[in-house]
């Protein structure tokens, strides 16, 4: 193709069976106007080095698998284009703050096995209704209260953007706390008390120092910083025992 150009992609390589620490390897990759960073990596794997390891799935910014550090910034690699870095180099690393398993693959188990289940990411109703009792009703205004926070795709870019998580891995972190708020803010949910221990903890909302970079990098505009920091007020009210009086749902 006439409009094909070549860009240098520096990729972090780490083979746990051979390497003591990661190193960078540079590849020359042809690209056109619509080549994503992910496609650049796929070119390397298909044509230059089949051992390059990275996660990806949908190619359209909804599965949340292909997050990488692209020139130091957490990005979905399918959502980022090589043209924007040319004529410079592109440096691709695994998402920051997570252990590197191999090349660009991180160990996500801290989030999926610990942090996410800890916030009970499902509607906890006041009482269980049989299916025959029909659906739970919700007004558009009630829906709006949590809609933004329900858009999280668990891509973990916000964890890679959060220095507090990097410094203190016990911090529950942006996505899990945003999802905690997503369920607490849902009119059908009465799980506040069950999630309170996680929310009120030092490792909960108080572990956040409002760096704010999580909301900056979120590809779905979830705004975890806002979910977390508005709950510092709720957590304080809970501490003084006045939350039940002031919460919109009566706090039950």
């Amino acid at each position, binding site marked *: 193709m006439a409009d094909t150009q070549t860009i240098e992609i520096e990729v972090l390589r*780490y083979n*746990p*069976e051979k*390497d003591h*620490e*990661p190193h960078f390897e540079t590849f020359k990759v042809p690209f056109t106007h619509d080549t994503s960073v992910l496609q650049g990596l796929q070119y390397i794997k298909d044509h230059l080095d089949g051992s390059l390891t990275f996660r990806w799935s949908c190619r359209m910014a909804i599965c949340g698998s292909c997050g990488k550090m692209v020139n*130091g*910034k957490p990005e979905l690699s399918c959502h980022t284009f090589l043209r924007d870095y040319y004529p410079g180099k592109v440096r691709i690393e695994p998402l*920051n*703050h997570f*252990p*590197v*398993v191999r090349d660009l693959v991180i*160990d996500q*188990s801290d989030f999926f*096995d610990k942090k996410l289940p800890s916030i009970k990411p499902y509607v906890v109703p006041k009482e269980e209704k049989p299916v025959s009792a029909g659906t739970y009703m919700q007004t*558009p*205004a009630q829906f*709006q*209260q949590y809609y*933004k926070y329900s858009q999280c795709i668990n891509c973990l870019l916000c964890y890679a953007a959060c*220095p507090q998580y*990097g*410094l203190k891995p016990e911090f529950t972190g942006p996505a899990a706390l945003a999802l905690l708020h997503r369920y607490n*803010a849902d009119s059908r949910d009465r799980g506040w008390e069950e999630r309170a221990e996680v929310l009120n903890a030092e490792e909960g909302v108080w572990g956040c*120092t*409002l*760096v*704010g*970079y999580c*909301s*900056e990098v979120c590809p779905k505009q979830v*705004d975890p*910083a*806002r979910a977390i*920091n*508005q709950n*510092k*007020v709720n957590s304080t009210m809970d501490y003084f025992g006045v939350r039940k009086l002031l919460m919109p749902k009566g706090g039950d």
Partner: protein
Amino acid sequence: MARVKTFIRPMEGWWRKNPFFVRYMIREGSSVFLAIYAVILLVGLLRLTQGEAAYDAWRVAVASPLSLLFHWLALLTVGYHAYTWWKVSPKTAPDIFIAGRPIPELVISGGGWLATIGASILIYIIVRWM
């Protein structure tokens, strides 16, 4: 999940690697100047309770070139702190919708900036002329 050998990357120098974090550190660091300024002001209050001579001595001390330099520096950093304080303030606000639309973050921040500027002008007028 089966445990495999992983590599954990060090956090050393993390804030120098991204301009966003550099600004964050300046934001947090600027509060140190605010704290020192508050202590100087409280000392002044203490000296005032100790009589005229003590208060005059404090006034001479704060008028020294070194003290003036600090106060200009403090004004600058506290100004930046006030700017960033309101800039992040929407993140602490509950989600309020007016006619189905969220209140834009700029309205919250802008309101804060205008209030800060207004209050500063008012205090300056009171201190200078009243």
